């Protein structure tokens, strides 16, 4: 299959791009830094059974929504047909940092919500125009409840999750498959330095799970799966409990 990945240079996106390349899929990589994208493209090429996975790269920034359309046009031009558009890119910062840095908070809310949504709108339009395809977007378990350590980040991810849910309902019949990925805590540079909670996973562990969800068009996938049950409990906790606990 042909996949367009936004965020493949780092973390979960890097692991996912490698997993796609390793099974022979073709990739078009989007991101902020062209040189970084070329290095990741070379890395994916070596991992591909045929020795060539990358069909090209193009610049795209969630903080510059106008960059989405030309980047996706370039991807479609290189791929012909795109079977899946994958978004793993996002910003993250601790609640403490976001509270003390208003500019960072603005950028995070913009990148993780409106920037991602506007990118998905462009992708959705193109996928529908070719008769369907998969849109796989990384949201987060942080968007399931309002919680003390993730007030702002969680709010952006909650909004994103709701948008993706609505998108699924509205366009499913026309062939759009929306896959919302809800990772728990991943050991990546995004979370480097934070104390790792239980059920922390490595990007390489979750990549095959996300791949399977993309192949099957699973609407919502928790990675690792244990988070489905953890969040079931967290969603059912009464307000007075969440006010008291630290997570």
């Amino acid at each position: 299959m042909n996949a367009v990945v936004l965020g493949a240079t780092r973390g979960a996106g890097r692991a996912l791009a490698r997993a796609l390349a390793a099974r022979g899929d073709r990739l078009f990589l989007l991101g902020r830094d062209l040189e970084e994208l070329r290095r990741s493209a070379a890395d994916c090429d070596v991992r591909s059974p045929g020795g060539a996975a990358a069909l090209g790269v193009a610049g795209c920034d969630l903080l510059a929504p106008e960059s989405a359309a030309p980047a996706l046009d370039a991807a479609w031009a290189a791929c012909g047909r795109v079977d899946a558009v994958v978004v793993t890119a996002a910003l993250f910062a601790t609640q403490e940092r976001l509270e003390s840095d208003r500019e960072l908070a603005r950028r995070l809310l913009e990148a993780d919500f409106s920037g991602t949504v506007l990118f998905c709108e462009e992708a959705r339009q193109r996928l529908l125009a070719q008769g369907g395809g998969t849109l796989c977007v990384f949201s987060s378990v942080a968007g399931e409840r309002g919680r003390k350590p993730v007030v702002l980040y969680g709010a952006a991810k909650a909004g994103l999750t709701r948008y993706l849910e609505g998108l699924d309902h509205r366009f499913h019949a026309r062939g759009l498959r929306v896959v919302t990925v809800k990772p728990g805590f991943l050991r990546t540079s995004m979370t480097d330095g934070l104390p790792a909670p239980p059920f922390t996973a490595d990007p390489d562990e979750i990549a095959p799970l996300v791949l399977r969800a993309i192949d099957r068009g699973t609407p919502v996938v928790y990675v690792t799966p244990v988070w489905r049950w953890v969040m079931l409990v967290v969603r059912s906790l009464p307000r007075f409990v969440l006010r008291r606990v630290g997570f």
Partner: protein
Amino acid sequence: MSSGENGERLAGWGGLSVPGRELRSEDLAAVARGAVLTRGLGRSYGDSALPPPGVLTVAGSALADRILELDVEAPRLRAEAGLSLRALVPHLLRRGLFPPVVPGTQFVTLGGMVAADVHGKNHHVDGTIGRYVTRLVLLTADGERVTCSRAVEPELFRATLGGMGLTGHILEVELALRRLPSRWLLAESLRVDGIDAFLDGLEQSARAWRYTVGWIDCLTTGRRLGRGVVFRGRWATAEEAAGRRERREAQRSVPFDFPNWALNDATARLFNAVYTRCHPRRPRPRVESPRRFFWPLDAIGHWNRIYGRRGFTQFQCVLPERERPGAAKRFLAAAAARGGSSFLCVVKDCGEEGEGVLSFPRPGISIALDLPLRPSTAELVRALAEVVIEEGGRIYLAKDAFVRRDQFARMEPRLAEFERIRARWDPGRRLRSAQSVRLFGDPA
């Protein structure tokens, strides 16, 4: 940022640890800028990958692990320094390629291999990894990105091979590769009864076999001193390997620290006796996978836990056997006399000295002892270092945690040249480690 203040510790493979933690990023240069040291997968045994006292962070390279170019024709590889052999080797084997030199574990990064200028079972013919490195990209102490090779900044290049990360943070490595006749090795082992027969067996094997190494039972003394097993192997030809198929090899792990008493003289003696007898006197060749041949210990995760919570250290030295015949024998006798009882004693004949200014191997016999940490271990190591100095040998920095600065200076006439080159790139000695403070006298 939290940095070691939550009781986090950084440890060497032997278990020795200090307060601190790694800063990890895919962008290694970003975390290395401002860091005193970059650390790979932490497989050096002693304190070479630990920060100096008072410094709580080091850069970690493990996330900088992209393969940037694999030229199958040359054949040549260019990759980021955090790439591990474990991640790389399957991609090479698939193309009939292999790293020209590999150490005893695949859990090492390319950067770590260059920094320690690692050697393997083929040192007697192929030298260290440094011989195959064609280009390095470093982040030097002043934050500059410097590309060096034999043609460009050759001094910096030579000092970085075996320079333990003190000349600059290694960001990228370019390496020549070996083309294989098959993906399998033809290997055999033979039991030998004494040190003379053992060294003889190693020398005989060296002529016909690309890979040789030996294991000796250090607990036997007197006539049987040096009872052991010689292992040898070479890449199998296509015919010899015909019909072999890859199998998933079982991965076991030591789930917890053994109690400290579990490994004592009696259990070590028992193991050694059984282990010796597992090998025939007359070699029977067998076909083995690279993983089994090069990295048998990697099949057991956390094998260092058998030494218990106290941990262990390794003492590895190389002795100029040709100039001083009997040096290895005298060293082993001295070790046995001082109670340097070792579970694992690995012996290897080394070939030509490499280009690295502080590279470990030189022509002679290399001996590596695993020593459980006891209150007396530091003294034992220093006593062994004296024997090494006496015999004109040197120690392997990637293994050491206890040798004294004055001892290092006496066994390392090349130190002055290393410091001269280092002074040009890092006059303030900003780049340093717990080990360089101990051995090079760097500011703490």
